[in-house]
């Protein structure tokens, strides 16, 4: 209906243009864009409004944002793409998905790479072509309770720490009160120290909050452990999880779960539950998404007491991905959509986005926003210093899901690292093109 109306308007406008040498105000073309709800969608609405009221008038473009629920956005887009739909002009995508989406997207030209965090802009290239424009950058922090970590340094606690690490991990360790330099042993020993099972005086019931549900986003977090222990999905193109480093990374999760440093329920935890464990004061630390900072720093037991560190490990690395928007190849309004994308790639547009709560992938903007969200400073440093992602081609999204499925039984102690590592490698082999 709407389309027909628009078409009529467009034809009428076309007739006008054809009829008069100097066209009067052209009818605006509506560009429909998918995003997901939450801070990104809300921030983007502000940018959209600003565009429609300003630059959009000059461009003859009106942008309409449609929010789909987070869990179904990508499923719906998959259906739309396969149906070669032209209903939406701009799709929501991400660096871990752009490989899968690339066949249905048009290349975006004229983007100034220099404005963006390198990891974010590069993650959205497929065969060296820019297939999507970065919005928010996501990475992980090791969140911990600052009040509890600083309590470790007392002599009594040092002795207790040594004894607990001996019982739980089989090695005597001394407290390390600088989480930025933690090894995974330090993290595990600290988690054990703040678990009431081993230390009845611990203020938190559990030392760790482990998102161990069979969910692809949880694999992204586990990847930090893998990299922190020197591992990788592939080595010289061959699967590399059935190795000492791969199995050690599985065992870190397995130890946390089977030694009950985390709640038994955490076998079904994801982002929200991990946050709840921290804010309720029941858990002391967690490797978690940067997005959690605003909630953790303001609510519940972690309010004002949450510290941020890079993921533990010698080869400290954090997963980085960028949420992004790409242009539907089947859109009938390519030119108009390109105009909007061009606007979106400018600093003022992204500044607007940041002011409304987004986390744009432009360091220049993040720097100026540190006063509103202290974690922005860490994003820039960590993304540059530790930022990493497995670029596994078109099936990357699929691999994350498959690894969650294969590894999660070992994370929660149903299987051993040995049992799952070879299966994981077989999956990695079959999914790599």
């Amino acid at each position, binding site marked *: 209906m709407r389309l027909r109306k628009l078409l009529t308007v467009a034809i009428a406008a076309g007739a006008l243009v054809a009829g008069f040498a100097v066209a009067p105000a052209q009818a605006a073309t509506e560009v429909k864009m998918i995003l997901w709800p939450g801070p990104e969608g809300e921030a983007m609405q502000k940018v959209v409004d600003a565009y429609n009221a300003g630059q959009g008038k000059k461009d003859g473009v009106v942008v309409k944002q449609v929010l789909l629920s987070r869990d179904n956005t*990508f499923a719906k887009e998959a259906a739309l793409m396969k149906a070669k739909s032209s209903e939406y002009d701009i799709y929501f995508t991400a660096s871990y998905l752009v490989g899968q989406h690339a066949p249905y997207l048009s290349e975006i030209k004229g983007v100034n790479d220099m404005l963006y965090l390198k990891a974010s802009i590069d993650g959205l290239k497929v065969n060296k072509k820019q297939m999507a424009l970065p919005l928010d950058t996501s990475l992980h922090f090791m969140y911990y309770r600052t009040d509890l970590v600083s309590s470790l340094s007392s002599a009594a606690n040092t002795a207790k720490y040594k004894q607990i690490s001996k019982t739980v991990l089989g090695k005597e360790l001394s407290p390390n009160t600088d989480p930025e330099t933690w090894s995974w042993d330090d993290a595990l020993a600290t988690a054990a120290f703040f678990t009431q099972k081993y230390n009845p005086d611990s203020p938190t019931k559990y030392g760790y909050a482990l998102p*161990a549900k069979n969910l692809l986003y949880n694999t992204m977090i586990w990847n930090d452990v893998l990299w922190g222990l020197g591992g990788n999905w592939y080595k010289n193109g061959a699967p590399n999880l059935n190795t000492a480093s791969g199995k050690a990374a599985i065992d870190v999760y397995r130890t946390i779960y089977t030694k009950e440093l985390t709640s038994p*329920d955490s076998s079904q935890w994801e982002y929200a539950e991990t946050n709840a464990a921290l804010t309720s004061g029941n858990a002391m630390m967690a490797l978690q998404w940067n997005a959690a900072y605003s909630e953790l720093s303001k609510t519940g037991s972690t309010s004002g007491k949450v510290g941020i560190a890079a993921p533990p490990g010698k080869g400290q690395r954090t997963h980085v991905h960028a949420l992004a928007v790409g242009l539907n190849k089947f859109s009938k309004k390519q030119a108009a959509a390109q105009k909007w994308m061009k606007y979106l790639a400018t600093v003022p547009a992204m500044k607007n986005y940041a002011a409304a709560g987004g986390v744009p992938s432009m360091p220049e903007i993040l720097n100026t926003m540190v006063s509103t969200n202290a974690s922005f400073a860490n994003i820039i440093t960590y993304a540059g210093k530790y930022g990493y992602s497995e670029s596994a081609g*078109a099936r990357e*999204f699929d691999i994350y899901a498959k690894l969650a499925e294969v590894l999660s039984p070992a994370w929660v102690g149903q299987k051993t690292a040995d049992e799952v590592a070879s299966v994981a490698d077989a999956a990695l082999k079959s999914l790599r093109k």
Partner: protein
Amino acid sequence: MIRQRKDRVSAFVLAAPLLLFLSVLVVWPIYLGIKTALSRDLLSEFEITPAGLDNFRTVIAAPDFWSALRFTIIFAVVVTIVEGLLGFGLALIFDRKFPGKRTLFSMVLIPIMIAPSLMAVMYRLILNENIGVIPGVLQKFGWEFSIFDQRYVFFTLVTLDAIQYTSFAFLLVYAALQNIPQEIYESAAIDGARYRQVIWRITLPILKPALAIIAMLRLIDSFRTFDTIYILTGGGPGISTQTIGIYIYKTAFITGDFGLASAASVTLVLLLAPLMPKIIKQFRLDIK
């Protein structure tokens, strides 16, 4: 039962809307679905190419498919029995006059009014060990119980399904009960037969066909169980709670393999098709 030619025309006219509906909304989509099942149709690949029976071979050789099928059958049978019994019991309770009946009747139906996907989100909240009300209350009574501990997760999922869908069984049994003449109970009471015997000898036999329908419906519906388990466990740990619905959804929308997902759907129907005539016989709807 066809009495005359005129009736045959009427029969067709009466069924025409259904036939029209089925031909538009079912025949074409099924044709497309089967075509997809016979194609190599991946999201990551733009071209769709004919693949013969490749997808079916892959499905049949996939251990995940069979383990999902096994889990689904066990889950479906267990929830059907649990919900059937509870629903029947509840309908018997409601099959009399008592104070507050009307209000309670509506309250009992509440769970099916909440979309399973939203219900699952509510479960995530109220069953959460750290911020949920239910573990909170249990802890007050000194009962520490990890609801989502992988050892109890099957039990948990069955319970949650029962909370949501017992109402459905209840409503159907209740409606069926209304077709039993009240006099049966009265005359039985005069005979001095005890209530339990009345239920056993009179109500149950009369209700048998209705109960069979309800059981079959719940069985078929629980074969499609998806939202609640997917949101709560993602099918995990591993694939230990993966239903066939989750398998197909993940195959289509995460793996992006639409050909395989369609083939799995078709295989599922083919596997269950031999049961259909039996089910229909159960329904006593074989008219001739």
